[in-house]
């Protein structure tokens, strides 16, 4: 985190600062004159919101942490339709949640610039999967830019706003962990002061009943064919180097390619694709015609490779195209210069100066005496107490559907509470299904922020269809895992202002749950007896384990505790 986020507000074009990729996005938002910013925090995207929340007032920007990514995208899209440049950011799995709105929003189009930043997490550093969100741009038919470093993240964000306004389309900027969490030198540009427009009614464009949707789909395809012309001219698609060997790459992999070429000591022409949707088909054809062999280097899925092969089939049949479909590069995990060099050297038949496989082998000896150090719950964490209560109350027999957050770490021994964990809010639905079959008590475990994010439909379903399980809500009064952002249960907004506090127990009752209790996990005996009573209910039960995270800043805790004192517990 920047020591002083106000740096991002400096109106000093030409200034150079060492910024995280995410902070460069925040700076880009300031320069682009973004009026509305929304996000649901998630690694590796969180610092975009953390930075903007701290400078919102100074930037004259409205910043909110939304309850989930779908809501966040909708709030930002609404603001765009009303004439204000808007930005929403999320981790890659957040786009799964928001995709329903995104795909149809592309039909409707937007008004003032609207950009979605998706931060992917190759290697699952802090995620439940490593999906490749470039496919969302393809699926939704929206332009997508992919930066390879923090400077480009800032530059491309600004370009994304311009493209969005030119075509009245949502535009995506796809980051990955090694861009979001890379700190590099970023040169500032001028800060635009932008006027906010006004909402213009146009229901034929914006009300997606079938008759309008059919027409707007055609309009979207026309916009994308215009985009194809834009990307052919884009400065973000560029060729460097010389030779009859061609490398086609994008984003962070571009960096690995340049270092790998140096490691092997060969030259090649490198086409860096910055506009990953739509691809610059003309430029790629021309590039293919200028080389004898083309190697596609990209992390995760063969997104470029498949499309490049299709382009070659039309325009450069004689050029051999190799990549991960031929097994030269892995389809999982993140790349490194060594991994790319190993793949390239297999293809060109020349060994790198650095014997990557040998190094890995030697390091494996050291690894063999190195005990693993998995992440774990902090000393004094209230979740540890909650898990202990759950274990004792269920007498070790419970089947537990857990959820996304710090408390997912409770699945590890010695706590061992958590038998399945898939996605945000899935605990409620999964617990319901488990309870239909197993005869053991079923417990769902969810955190406070995740409860608001996506578990409510599951909870209503549990009440409506009378699923018999206990939903344990571990309420530590913050979104701890992603950096302690506030949520509706804290009564504080993203910018630290006191707002309406939404009580989890009130919501549970409103969802139709009859048995709702609040316990303090540190009051062990009473918490165990409540939990036992909950397990013996004939329908769904909710037990809220409330105690603040040990890592919450003292001043924040005081505000929350004051807010708690104003309310009578259930």
């Amino acid at each position: 985190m920047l020591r002083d986020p106000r740096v991002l507000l400096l109106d000093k074009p030409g200034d150079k600062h060492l910024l995280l990729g995410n902070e460069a996005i925040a700076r880009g938002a300031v320069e682009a004159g973004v009026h509305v910013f929304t996000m649901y925090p998630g690694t590796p995207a969180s610092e975009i919101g953390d930075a903007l929340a701290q400078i919102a007032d100074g930037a004259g920007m409205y910043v909110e942490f939304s309850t989930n990514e779908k809501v966040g995208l909708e709030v930002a899209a609404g603001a765009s339709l009303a004439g204000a440049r808007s930005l929403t950011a999320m981790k890659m799995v957040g786009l799964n949640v928001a995709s329903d709105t995104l795909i149809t929003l592309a039909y409707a189009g937007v008004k003032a610039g609207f950009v979605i930043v998706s931060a992917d997490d190759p290697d699952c550093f802090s995620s439940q999967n490593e999906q490749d969100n470039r496919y969302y741009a393809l699926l939704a038919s929206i332009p997508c830019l992919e930066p390879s470093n923090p400077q480009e993240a800032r530059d491309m964000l600004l370009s994304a706003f311009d493209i969005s306004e030119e075509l009245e389309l949502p535009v995506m900027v796809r980051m990955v962990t090694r861009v979001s969490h890379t700190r590099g030198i970023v040169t500032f540009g001028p800060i635009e002061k932008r006027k906010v427009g006004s909402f213009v009614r146009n229901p034929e464009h914006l009300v997606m009943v079938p008759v309008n949707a059919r027409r707007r789909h055609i309009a979207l395809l026309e916009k994308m064919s215009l985009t194809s012309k834009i990307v052919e001219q884009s400065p973000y698609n560029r060729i460097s180097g010389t030779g009859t060997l061609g490398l086609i790459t994008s984003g962070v992999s571009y960096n690995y390619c340049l270092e790998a070429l140096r490691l092997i000591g060969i030259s090649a022409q490198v086409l860096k694709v910055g506009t990953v949707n739509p691809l610059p088909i003309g430029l790629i054809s021309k590039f293919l015609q200028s080389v004898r062999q083309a190697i596609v280097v990209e992390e995760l899925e063969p997104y470029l490779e498949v499309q490049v092969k299709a382009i070659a089939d039309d325009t450069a049949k004689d050029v051999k195209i190799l990549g991960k479909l031929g097994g030269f590069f892995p389809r999982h995990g993140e790349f490194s210069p060594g991994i790319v060099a190993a793949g390239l050297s297999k293809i060109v038949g020349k060994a790198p100066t650095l014997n990557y496989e040998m190094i890995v082998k030697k390091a494996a000896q050291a690894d063999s005496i190195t005990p693993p150090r998995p992440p774990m719950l902090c000393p004094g964490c209230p979740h540890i107490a909650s898990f202990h209560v759950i274990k004792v109350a269920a007498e070790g027999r419970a089947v537990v559907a857990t959820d996304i957050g710090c408390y997912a770490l409770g699945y590890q021994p010695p706590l061992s509470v958590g038998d399945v964990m898939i996605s945000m809010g899935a605990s409620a639905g999964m617990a319901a299904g488990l309870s239909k079959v197993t005869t053991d008590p079923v417990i769902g475990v969810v955190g406070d922020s995740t409860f608001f994010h996506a578990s409510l439909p599951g909870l209503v379903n549990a009440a409506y269809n009378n699923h018999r399980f206990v939903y344990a809500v571990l309420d530590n009064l913050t979104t701890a895992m992603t950096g302690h952002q506030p949520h509706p249960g804290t009564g504080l907004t993203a910018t630290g202002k006191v707002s309406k506090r939404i009580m989890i127990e009130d919501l549970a009752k409103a969802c139709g749950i009859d048995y709702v209790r609040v316990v303090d996990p540190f009051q062990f005996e009473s918490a165990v007896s409540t939990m036992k009573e909950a397990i013996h209910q004939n329908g769904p039960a909710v037990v809220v384990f409330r105690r603040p995270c040990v890592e919450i800043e003292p001043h924040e805790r005081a505000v929350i505790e004051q807010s708690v004192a104003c309310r009578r517990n259930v």
Partner: protein
Amino acid sequence: MNPKTFDVIVSGVGGQGVILASEILGDAALKEGLDVVISEIHGMAHRGGSVVSHVRFGSDMYSPTITEGSADVILGFEPIETLRALKFAHQDTRIIMNSEPIIPVTVSTGAHRYPTLKEVVEQCQTFTKHITVLDAFKIAEEAGSSKTVNIVLLGALAATGLLPVKEENLTQTIKGHVPEKFLKENLNAFDAGKRAVVSK
């Protein structure tokens, strides 16, 4: 092993100040007029897990991560975290390692054994003979606060004379990154780290 870049792997445990140390190195290099790239890991790993940060400065560099077998320095905040970073070492790599272990849960539950310091050093020696081991925890405590292990190690790194960054740039940067009330103990820690290497 690109002569134009200086690559430092900072490896430790979440909470030890790995990221702060990396930022200080990066900012000091920026003051020096060098290009800087740092790659950090945030999020789940931070909950007491292993944290490794790649700090690169100089010119003509692209990758945010350091190539395996190419680090100029490995700054190990903890013995087994140093072992985990060895794939970045080569025969000329300087390893500066804190000898004070932080026992992981996999050892305290009896599932794994923590290696002896001798074993750790032997593994390091299979890569390089340039190894400096110091009890940075004890040095930090004596300098005023056990929380300054990261700054002790930066001091030790400065004392090797390998860094293409002037010492006053480093101390100036520390002043910009550390809250006023903790400044004295941090500057003490830096000096103590330096002395620990010089006296060896």
